[in-house]
C-alpha cells in the first residue's frame, strides 16, 4: 500500500500532505500530555515492529503481494495518537532509506496507513471491546476485527487516490499522466488484496501479539493500560 512517487499528481500529493498535517500536529500535542518515560520505549518497540512486519509480503491471487501494518495494534496498546506518530515514523524511514513509498507521496501514505488505519481500527476495537478487561476475549477479538477493518479502510483510501488520477490528470487526448488505472480497476485490486490477504494477516498478527503479551507479560499490559488511560 506504499504509493510510490509518480503515481499521484503533485497536486494530489499536496492535498494529502495538507490532510495529514493537522493530525501530526494533534498527535504531537496529545502525546505531549500522555507519553511518559515508561511508554516511550514501548512506542519505539512497536513502531519498529510495524516497520518489520511490513516486510513480510504475502502472496495475493493474481500475482501481487500485500502485508500487515500493525497500526491498530499500536492504537490499542498505546492509543491512536501514538499510532499516528509511530506508523508515520516507520513510513518515513521506509521512504527515505528503502525507497518504499514515495517522498512526494509520503503525505498520502501517512494519511492512509498512519491516520485512517489506526483511527478506524481503534474505533471498531472500541465499539466491540469498550473498556473490557484485558482478560475478556472481547479485548483481543475487538482488536483483531478493528485491525481487519482498519487496514481495509486504508486500502480503500489508497485505491481512491490511485483511481482518481486518470480521471483528473490526463493529456488533451485522454492519455493518463500518472496512475493509469481508474477507480474500477484500483478499488477491486486493492480490496481483493486486503479483504482476502492483508486484512487477515493484520487481524491474526494483532490478536496474536495481544494474546502473547497477555499470557507472557501480563504485568506489562496492565501497566500500559494504567499508563495510557490514566
Amino acid at each position, binding site marked *: 500500500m506504499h504509493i510510490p512517487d509518480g503515481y499521484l499528481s503533485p497536486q494530489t500529493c499536496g492535498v494529502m500532505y495538507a490532510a495529514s498535517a493537522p493530525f501530526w500536529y494533534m498527535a504531537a500535542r496529545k502525546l505531549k500530555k500522555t507519553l511518559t518515560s515508561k511508554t516511550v520505549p514501548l512506542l519505539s518497540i512497536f513502531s519498529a515492529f510495524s516497520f518489520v512486519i511490513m516486510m513480510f509480503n504475502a502472496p495475493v491471487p493474481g500475482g501481487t503481494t500485500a*502485508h500487515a501494518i500493525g497500526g491498530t495494534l499500536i492504537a490499542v496498546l498505546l492509543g491512536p495518537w501514538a499510532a499516528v506518530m509511530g506508523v508515520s515514523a516507520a513510513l518515513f524511514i521506509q521512504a527515505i532509506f528503502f525507497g518504499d513509498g514515495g517522498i512526494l507521496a509520503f503525505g498520502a501514505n501517512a494519511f492512509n496507513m498512519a491516520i485512517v488505519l489506526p483511527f478506524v481500527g481503534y474505533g471498531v476495537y472500541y465499539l466491540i471491546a469498550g473498556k473490557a478487561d484485558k482478560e475478556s476475549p472481547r479485548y483481543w477479538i475487538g482488536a483483531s476485527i478493528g485491525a481487519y477493518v482498519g487496514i481495509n479502510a486504508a486500502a480503500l483510501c489508497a485505491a481512491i487516490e490511485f483511481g482518481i488520477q486518470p480521471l483528473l490528470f490526463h493529456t488533451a487526448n485522454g492519455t493518463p499522466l500518472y496512475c493509469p488505472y481508474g477507480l474500477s480497476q484500483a478499488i477491486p485490486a486493492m480490496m481483493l488484496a486486503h479483504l482476502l490477504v492483508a486484512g487477515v494477516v493484520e487481524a491474526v498478527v494483532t490478536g496474536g501479539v495481544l494474546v502473547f503479551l497477555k499470557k507472557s507479560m501480563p504485568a506489562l499490559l496492565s501497566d500500559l493500560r494504567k499508563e495510557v488511560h490514566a
Partner: protein
Amino acid sequence: MKNLKYLWIGLAILAILSPIGLMASGDAWGEWGAEAFKKMLGFVPAGLAKFSGIWKAPLADYSVPGAGDAIGYILSAFVGILLVALATWLIGRALSNRERKDAKG
C-alpha cells in the same frame, strides 16, 4: 516494565525471519517500477516517468549493495528497526511529559 529485553529479542527474530517476505513473487498492486508500464500498457505515463525517480534511496527495495537478497533483506530489517526505534524514541523523549514522569516516579 522490565520485560522489554524480550520484546527487542522478538524484533531481532522477526528481522532474521524477514526473508520469508521475499518468497511471495511480484510487487504489491500499484507499486510497480516505471519500466513495468511499458509491458503492461505499451508506454510509461509521462508524469509517472518524470516523478518516479525523484528520490534515490540508499537501500532501495531493502537490498544492500554487495549482499545477496536474503542477507540484504535481513540487514535492511535490522537497520530499519534501529532507525525507526531511534526516531520514535527521540520524538517521544522530546514530547514526553516531565511533570507526569516526576509525579509517577
